[in-house]
């Protein structure tokens, strides 16, 4: 077989090839049960699809041959949705598990993403802290969307901003992830925030 080597010769990036749309990523982060998949589902043109990434135990993340026979591999599920903007442009929304142990996966997902929505639930606010920490650290634009569950106590926005220790430029919105218009408004706020970061002279860092 003719071996193309590490740099594929004919399989070059073909973004210019007609008929191949450009795909854009938005991350939807937050704790378990906060409504990530609900938000994805309320704006996606398809029912949220599920994909999985193999997840090795932390001790086996390093390439080691010893004890490999004991290595148990589990998978972590990610739900994603799609919004076709035009024939040339498609937005993908990825609901990503918020726990710190999945950060290796986030690095991958965050590459080239335009930004992230961090979803919060006032009953379990701490669940979104790792997500906020992550996006603050890698400089990716993000907004916080507080999903207003019916039985959750409502707090004034300034109180929540203080509790989350948000810098003044980070938008915080209240939303109902079940409502298409509400979820849409969150995404619009994120993209506008990303634009203002770009046009405001602030250096924009890609995920890596």
């Amino acid at each position, binding site marked *: 077989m003719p071996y193309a080597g590490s740099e594929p010769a004919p399989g070059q990036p073909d973004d210019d090839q007609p008929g191949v749309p450009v795909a854009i990523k938005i991350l939807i982060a937050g704790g378990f049960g906060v409504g990530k998949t609900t938000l994805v589902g309320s704006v996606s043109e398809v029912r949220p699809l599920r994909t999985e990434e193999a997840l090795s135990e932390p001790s086996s993340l390093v390439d080691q041959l010893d004890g490999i026979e004991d290595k148990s591999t589990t998978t972590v599920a990610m739900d994603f949705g799609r919004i076709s903007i035009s024939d040339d442009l498609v937005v993908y929304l990825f609901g990503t598990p918020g726990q710190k142990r999945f950060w290796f996966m986030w690095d991958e997902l965050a590459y080239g993403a335009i930004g992230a929505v961090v979803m919060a639930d006032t009953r379990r606010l701490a669940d979104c802290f790792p997500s906020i920490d992550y996006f603050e650290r890698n400089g990716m634009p993000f907004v916080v969307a507080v999903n207003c569950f019916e039985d959750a106590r409502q707090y004034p926005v300034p109180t929540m901003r203080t509790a989350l220790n948000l810098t003044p430029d980070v938008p915080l919105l209240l939303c109902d992830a079940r409502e298409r218009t509400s979820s849409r408004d969150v995404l619009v706020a994120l993209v506008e925030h990303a*634009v203002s970061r770009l046009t405001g002279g602030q250096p924009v860092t890609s995920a890596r």
Partner: protein
Amino acid sequence: MTTRAGPPGHGELGGRRNRDGSDGAERVVRPYALTAGRTRPSGARIDVVAMVSASRSVRPQGTESDPELGPEHLRLLRFCRLPVSVADLAARLDLPLGVVRILLADLREHDLVYISQTAPAGIRDVRVLKEVADALRRL
């Protein structure tokens, strides 16, 4: 209400969660059996939203005899006759993303697929972002 001081330990995260704290269904699989134990794809990185399309020259009858390609390679190839994202392929084939990446890299080495690069530069393009914002507002 709790306040965020810094990265919290897992212990303070309350609420309902799976045994290991992850989202969604957990199951034990041997996904990398399909990749002959390889855990990393060869060649240039393959993003989760990279668009994959079968090369125009692909003749399925020719690829089936290639000993280096398994049934999963051929299944993948059938799904990317029209451009499709890596994430969509993984969902349709019900395979982990990592496995799909490795199989796609194999197909790329055989010149059977084109895989677009996700440009990190995309996020710097204000015109594209404004187009996205306008389109979202119309949803």
